[in-house]
């Protein structure tokens, strides 16, 4: 830690507990709120809701929304101004997220880029890479997908078999193999992923992190329908795909380290901030009130589940503020990120299960466009929470071994 950061941390530690925002943070909130209220795609203004982002039109509509936010510097508020952000702090970012989801903002089609790759690129990328990729990532011009999993490598990510071998001219690479479960891969522009560059090294060592355009010769993308019937996944085949040295992120053979930094963002604060779950929990309470009017007996049966779900979302919000305070005091979030992941995935499921309970037998009905929307769509997505970003079983292993210190094995 440098001297300035250290002094800052010391001041932080001397200031008392306070859950209020500063006046500057409040005015940031007000500014975000009024912009979002005026601009979020909405039925009233005839601009929304956007079609599902797992369709070609929906994907482009979501991309246009990212562009709109970027124009006014709302797409990546916590990034430096030079890449299109506002240089906002951690608390401001959490506040922005609360406002975004409260205003009914659409799913972020650029999320893998802005929340996962972006932070890794700021930490590990060259100046050239940051200038080349970050602004286009922030504006939605280039949408990224994540290429980690393979048919034979899920939880055991280090067992991946897709390979990269040195190409000609020297410094270039040639990629071969298969990546799967790439979210939004069906329509995305670029992929970041891990490939084995040294088959003889220890399995975590010989990996390298590559950035690959999905229209490169030798790439075949096969969309896969998810539980909701839409092509939310893709399989990506690599057949002699040539990649220049400028598209390696971090050092050759150090891909695992870069990937783990990205995984920390995915599990911890940045991919799934509390705002999203709080907004859903608030909608759940409103649903409960509606049901209480027409079917009080059902509402009564579901009351405890509703309260429990709202409390879980609120608890995650408060725990996140506690994590933010530790970060501002100078700590880094290590394996504790696994606790966050368990918390948000649990809260999301609790909220949606309670909603499905309130809806009773009408929960199975599809929306007017024939897809599961609203609570049912949210419920299907919540079911994925304990699987992606490292399954919850893996997170429990991490908590047990690296937070509690239980023996490995």
């Amino acid at each position, binding site marked *: 830690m440098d001297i300035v950061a250290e002094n800052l941390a010391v001041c*932080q*530690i*001397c*200031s*008392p*507990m*306070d*859950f*209020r*925002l*500063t006046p500057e*943070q409040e005015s940031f909130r007000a500014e975000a709120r009024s912009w979002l209220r005026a601009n979020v795609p909405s039925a009233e203004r005839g601009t929304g809701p956007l079609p599902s982002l797992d369709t070609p039109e929906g994907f482009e509509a979501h991309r246009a929304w990212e562009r709109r936010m970027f124009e006014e510097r709302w797409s990546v508020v916590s990034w430096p101004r030079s890449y299109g952000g506002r240089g906002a702090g951690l*608390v401001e970012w959490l506040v922005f997220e609360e406002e975004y989801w409260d205003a009914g903002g659409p799913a972020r089609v650029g999320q893998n880029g802005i929340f996962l790759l972006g932070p890794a690129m700021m930490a590990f990328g060259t100046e050239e890479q940051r200038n080349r990729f970050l602004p286009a990532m922030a504006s939605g011009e280039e949408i990224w997908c994540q290429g980690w999993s393979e048919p034979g490598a899920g939880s055991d990510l280090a067992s991946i078999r897709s390979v990269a071998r040195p190409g000609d001219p020297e410094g270039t690479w040639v990629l071969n193999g298969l990546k799967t479960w790439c979210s939004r891969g069906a329509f995305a522009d670029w992929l970041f992923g891990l490939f084995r560059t040294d088959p003889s090294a220890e399995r975590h060592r010989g990996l390298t992190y590559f950035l690959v355009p999905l229209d490169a010769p030798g790439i075949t993308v096969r969309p896969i329908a998810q539980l909701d019937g839409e092509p939310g996944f893709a399989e990506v085949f690599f057949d002699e795909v040539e990649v220049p040295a400028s598209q390696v992120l971090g050092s050759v053979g150090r891909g695992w380290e870069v990937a783990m930094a990205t995984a920390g963002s995915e599990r911890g604060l940045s991919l799934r901030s509390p705002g999203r779950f709080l907004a859903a929990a608030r909608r759940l*309470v*409103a649903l*409960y*009130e509606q049901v209480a009017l027409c079917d009080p007996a059902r509402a009564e049966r579901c*009351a*405890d589940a*509703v*309260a*429990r779900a*709202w*409390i*879980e979302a*609120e*608890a*995650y919000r*408060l*725990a996140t*503020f*506690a994590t*933010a*305070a*530790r970060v*501002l*005091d100078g700590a880094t979030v290590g394996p*504790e990120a696994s*606790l966050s992941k*368990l*918390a948000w995935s*649990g809260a999301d499921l609790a909220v949606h299960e309670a909603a499905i309970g309130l809806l009773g037998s009408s929960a199975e009905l599809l929306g007017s466009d024939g897809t599961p929307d609203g609570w049912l769509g949210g419920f299907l997505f919540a079911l994925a929470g304990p699987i992606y970003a490292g399954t919850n*079983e893996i*997170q*429990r*292993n991490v*908590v*047990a*071994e690296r*937070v*509690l*210190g*239980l*023996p*490995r*094995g």
Partner: protein
Amino acid sequence: MRAAFDRDQEDFAGQFRSFCEKECPPSAVRAAWTSEVGFSRERWGKLAELGVLGIGVPEELGGIGRGEVELAALLEVAGWAAVPEPVLETMAMAVPLLRECASGPGARVAREWLALIAAGEAVVTVGPEPAWASGATGSQLTTVLPGADMVLVAGSNGVVAVPSEACGIVARRALDGTRRLAEVTFDPAAATVLAGPDEALASLGKLADQAACGSAALLVGLSSRLLGMAVEHAGERRQFGRQIGSFQAVKHKLSDVALRIELARPAVWYAAWQLANQGAEASQAASVAKALAAEAATAAASASLQVHGAIGYTAEHDLHLWMKRSWALASWWGDAAHHRSRVLQSLIARTE
């Protein structure tokens, strides 16, 4: 925005923890079980010397004049050590109630007792009036009797102070040997009115919130000790040629407890901060904290018992001292389900 203790608060909690390690080891908790009143008057005096008892008492009455945030930090430590002294009753309930009454009709008496508490010379407990009790606490019994010097009886008719020698007491023993419960009757002539029926309702609401937040803080401390004992045991005990903590069934059980604790603790801080600042969400936040902490503690107790196996099922092992306190406090002044329903009611009221 800062969801953390400051350095002074951390330091004070740290001092209290060192005090507990020395003055209140498990053997002391065990000794309290068989003592006459369920706690130690001597340690009560030492708690006053350390400034713990006076944390919420105004400075001009010999206290430290701090609020619920500092109190929460201390109560978590008290839970961690399973301190048998009635810190919940006196520090988290009687002191705020007396503070509320320090400008009312019973100001003189209230101030006198606040000073006695800070000096370590008085043990004060709070008893709910039976008619009001069932809704708020689920119990019509009062704790710490006959060891208390005074009982504050709170109900919708007001708050009165009754010296315990003027009380009729039918003692009831509880599973946790430090918890001395009693049915109380008293002669109204012996009681000093601290708050009349008009002020009483507000005071009672706050009392219930203080009890919820205070018991939640204790429960977080109890849970973290229960988890700590289980982790320690799982690292030592070997079966099938390996440490039992290397079995995934054990790991996942304990990770789940860790998660519950990590979620309950900041909720307690938020409730304490709301109470300290008379925030609009104080009641709701206190119920959120209690709902989370009560379930964290009962989950910690079950998991820790299971991980210990038969040794944990004995009265010889210390585990039961923490388990039994957890079970009792989990439902004292409202169990998790009670507090969840309070949260839902307040959320609905807000949208109306």
